[in-house]
């Protein structure tokens, strides 16, 4: 069982940071919606407050790691230019653009993904900063809480768009190559 370094980075970016962010979104939305609603009866404890702050902070870190690894580690491999006549399997963008059946995965999918994904760290960094500044007082300021909730929801949507196209791009033209990492030595049956 082996994996190339480029595939490993793609996994870390998409299934590690990106997927974890998407999973975390649902928790943040539920927490903000229920516990921080102005009409909520249960008091917000110091523990609840610390939890929300750390949770949103962790989401912000995940969002930044996702876009930075995507933009500066994987995207250069995706958009690399081949020499004339080269095998396009190692050049995903050119491979997709070489066929009318797949070109939209690049011209629509990647073009949207590469920009919309950057909305995520902006939105969730704001949410984390507001949670850090206001903590349990978010319940006292429903408009602040609504903005944090709304921006978190939009970040979920943007991350979902980026994640969907990321998965489809990997399916149609995977980023591959680099050195090979041997993980498990199998035995022939």
């Amino acid at each position: 069982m082996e994996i190339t370094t480029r595939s490993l980075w793609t996994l870390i970016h998409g299934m590690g940071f990106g997927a974890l962010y998407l999973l975390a979104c649902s928790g943040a939305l539920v927490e903000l919606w229920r516990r921080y609603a102005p009409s909520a009866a249960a008091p917000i404890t110091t523990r609840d407050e610390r939890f929300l702050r750390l949770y949103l902070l962790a989401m912000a870190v995940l969002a930044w790691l996702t876009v930075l690894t995507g933009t500066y580690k994987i995207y250069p491999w995706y958009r690399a230019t081949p020499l004339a006549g080269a095998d396009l399997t190692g050049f995903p963008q050119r491979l997709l653009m070489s066929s009318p059946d797949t070109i939209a995965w690049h011209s629509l999918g990647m073009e949207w993904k590469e920009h919309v994904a950057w909305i995520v760290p902006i939105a969730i960094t704001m949410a984390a900063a507001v949670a850090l500044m206001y903590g349990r007082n978010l319940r006292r300021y429903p408009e602040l809480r609504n903005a944090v909730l709304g921006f978190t929801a939009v970040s979920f949507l943007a991350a979902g768009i980026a994640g969907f196209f990321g998965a489809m791009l990997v399916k149609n033209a995977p980023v591959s190559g680099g050195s090979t990492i041997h993980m498990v030595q199998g035995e022939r049956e």
Partner: protein
Amino acid sequence: MRTPAHPVSAAGPASATLTNGAGAAAILAAGIGAFLLAVFAIVGDKVAAMTKFFIFSKTTGPLSGVTTCTIVVWLVVWAVLHVRWRKQTLALARINTVAFVLLALSLLLTFPPIADLF
């Protein structure tokens, strides 16, 4: 948009002088940042000189400059608004509306068929 700062009735001493200005600054700055991302992406795609300008990293191409400029401007706007608003209580409904409109526009303007209309 501004109203004089007033103390918030609060249980804890930390919230006794809390205003919504710092939160408003973060929210509006995030809306502006997201919108600028879309604007820079369109400009970087349509204007040849800007495409070249945005190539901060040769391997990543114009995306490196588009995102770096967005982050820098967003943080500067946030810092300026924070300094100006942190001790004030503002009409947050209007600020939220503006921020959400800018956020919605950023989603729309990054969508290639819409970006290509410019």
